[in-house]
């Protein structure tokens, strides 16, 4: 057989498909790994799930019956396979406390978290990117120090403390914003009866219903927790923007652009920014994912009926199916955001195509 040195003809679409297939396989592996680890953690904690369900008054016979009904008498690998099979069919199990299917409960609480963290990351980007750029263009200036100090505070102050102080100041003393919860009591009751939930996100649902009074009230409630989350992500985004931007501003093409007499704002916001965007997308996606999973304490303080509160309450009552279900949803959201950031990355950076 004669060896041929000619390259095989390649189809660019095939390559892209292969790339996408690889990404999806790695995503599936990530989710599977997450499922396995959370399942094992939920099983090895020294809490008897049966006693958590049947309570103090149950007889030994009731305890044994429940153990069998939950499949806990089977070996752990068998339990995991059953659980995996159920999850693949969209069955995240049933909450021990309420008897409600976990998927249904998560579907109810997740939009509240999504709404809060989306607004949070928007605030974070709107404040963090300009602050980072400002700091990078004036290194060592007062503005730079202020941005760094504000960022450091966002990193180091406990979120529950910031939340409580924020509530005390802006709601308790100044009365600028609505209190904990998604609406005032009177609007909350009207919302239950007058508004058909479409998305589960109050700002969108009230706008769709044309209830602008309710929309304004919802905005007054969400603005403080969203700003708090926005501040946390701003701290990270501004620091990373500063570092990326400083790196770009030292490049030769920037010098060339300046020498050619291009206005400074155009050098920064068009030429440099285009390259800063590439790593920044990953940073923003990570911040967003962090807010989705990390708003637990914020939700507790602000009585926000989202996924964070749900998982916290479930943990407090040893409701492991609910904890597992919530964790998986957070994990899938995280993985999805990573996927989206990968795709955006390719869109923004021609070299990655």
């Amino acid at each position: 057989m004669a060896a041929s040195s000619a390259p095989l003809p390649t189809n660019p679409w095939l390559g892209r498909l292969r790339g996408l297939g690889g990404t999806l396989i790695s995503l599936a592996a990530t989710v599977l790994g997450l499922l396995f680890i959370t399942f094992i953690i939920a099983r090895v904690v020294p809490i008897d799930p049966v006693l958590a369900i049947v309570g103090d008054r149950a007889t030994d016979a009731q305890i044994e019956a429940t153990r069998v009904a939950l499949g806990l008498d089977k070996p752990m690998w068998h339990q995991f396979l059953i659980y995996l099979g159920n999850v693949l069919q969209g069955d995240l199990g049933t909450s021990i406390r309420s008897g409600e299917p976990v998927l249904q409960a998560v579907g109810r609480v997740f939009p509240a978290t999504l709404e809060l963290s989306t607004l949070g990351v928007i605030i974070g980007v709107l404040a963090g990117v300009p602050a980072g750029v400002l700091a990078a263009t004036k290194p060592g200036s007062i503005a730079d120090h202020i941005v760094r100090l504000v960022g450091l505070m966002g990193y180091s102050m406990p979120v529950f403390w910031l939340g409580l102080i924020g509530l005390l100041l802006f709601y308790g003393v100044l009365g600028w914003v609505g209190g904990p919860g998604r609406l005032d009591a009177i609007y909350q009751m009207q919302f239950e009866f007058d508004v058909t939930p479409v998305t589960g996100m109050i700002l969108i649902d009230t706008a769709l219903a044309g209830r602008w009074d309710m929309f304004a009230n919802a905005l007054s409630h969400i603005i403080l927790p969203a700003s708090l989350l926005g501040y946390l992500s701003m701290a990270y985004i501004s620091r990373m923007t500063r570092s990326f931007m400083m790196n770009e501003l030292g490049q030769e093409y920037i010098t060339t652009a300046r020498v050619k007499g291009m206005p400074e704002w155009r050098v920064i916001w068009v030429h440099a920014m285009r390259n800063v965007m590439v790593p920044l997308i990953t940073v923003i996606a990570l911040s967003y994912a962090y807010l989705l999973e990390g708003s637990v304490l914020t939700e507790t303080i602000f009585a926000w009926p989202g996924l964070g509160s749900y998982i916290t309450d479930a943990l407090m009552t040893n409701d492991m199916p609910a904890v597992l279900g919530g964790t998986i949803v957070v994990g899938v959201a995280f993985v999805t955001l990573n996927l989206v950031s990968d795709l955006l990355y390719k869109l923004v950076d021609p070299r990655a195509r």
Partner: protein
Amino acid sequence: MLIDPTLRRVGVAVAAALMMTAAPGALLAETPADTLVIADAIDDIVSLDPQEAFEFSGLDVINNVYDGLVELDPSEPTGPQPGLAESWDVSEDGMTFTFKMKPGITFSSGNPVTAEDAAFSLQRAVKLDKSPAFILNQFGWTKDNVDQMVTFDGDTVTLKTDKPYAPTFLYNCLTAGVAVVVDKKTVLEHEANGDLGNEWLKTNSAGTGAYILKSYKPNEGYILQAREGHWRGDAPMKAVFMRHVPEAATQRLLLEKGDIDVARELTPVDIEGIKGNADLKVQSDVGGQIFYLSFNQKNEAYKNEKFLDAMRWAIDYQGLADTVLKGNMVVHQAFLPKGYLGALDDTPFSLDVEKAKALLAESGVTAPKVVIDVRNAADRMEMAQSIQNTFGQVGITVELNIGEGAEQLKRYRARQHDATLQSWGPDYPDPQTNAGSFAWNDNNADDAGTGTLAWRNAYDPGPLNDITAAAVMERDGEKRAAMYQDLQQKHRTTSPFIALFQIGYNSAMRGNVNHFYTGGAIDSAAYWLVTK
């Protein structure tokens, strides 16, 4: 003056953000005049089906949405009052009880309330066999016989029991949430797979109470709407809005701002903090939970009465209640909570180190060491550390075994503890609920597995078993109360249990809220009398 364009843009962004934050300030609303807004932690709710609900928050809803044949007076829950039954009677042999229904009462559906509905509801509780069903099973009712034991004829419901129990025992049990009357027709319309409407009733209501359940979202809240033309008279509050607010500091802030009317989960620190606020007031009640220290009599030393007595005099009950547990606990030294038939309110024991030392010397127990299982919760740790300190002064070494609640419960149920600091809440408004657990153990074998508290501590109550058994059959209410008092007197001086505290609750509310009854140790919250 030239402004750097970047700086200018940042300035605009910051100004816009500030405006967004400040603008909605004018939209704040107070609670509506005819609506009661309450904040509480209601994540304990499992179901709002009255024949299934068995948690505090769920029973609060049931109490306002349903009525029973007999009921407790919210303002003074001492004994059964007429509810949906206008009168009742018991046969000569004490085994047949008849209840005559009040005429003219309707369910929220408009259906009239009949004896058939009342019989159906009790049968339903037994057939569903959910957590609270055992309260009714005590009368010999089983899934197989309940249709014969609970019957109706015209406007009369007839209940048969397998033994001539104390009438007060039956009446008290009928005031429990599990025994309320549901609308048979409506419930069966929503039956699915033979569940007697259970799935539907978890989030809907079909009762005669002053309120209708309009909406319930787990971990978020519920809304009750008042019925018009209610048989008790219309409730002043046209709606009750319960918000799930788990964080006490958040509840306090909402209350201070007037965005809620009542906060039910404030900590003693918060309660102290709002005392100076003239717009607010605090209402203190006791709950049903009893905190106690108990000793496993598999260890022979804990059968020594002098040793047990020494330990009873080596605890600083009042000191704890006045300091670290202030507002949380009230000293209580018997197993029936204040408010129950036959409860003892006196507190004969106090910290007396010298007396305890003398009793310990008399006991003959040398170099005593006690290992106390303690759940890792703040109030329990405070109690345990104080006990460790005062026992130490007497010469009893204490080791604390601190752990997670469910794990400690498992050890307790397996009789593996040496001593344990625990709490126990009554299951229904009759003294048998606690007597049957603290002072009843008819088989002390390891494999008997009765699960009563006496069994868990390997404690054979001996003659106290007989008093417990006799008290639940005593037909004279006053004599019955006296029997429980006698039982507790003996129990607290001879058993390996030391009752310490009864839990206290503080509800903080706006100054204009009146007639808010939490139900204390024995009943659930009543909203239909509230005014503001």
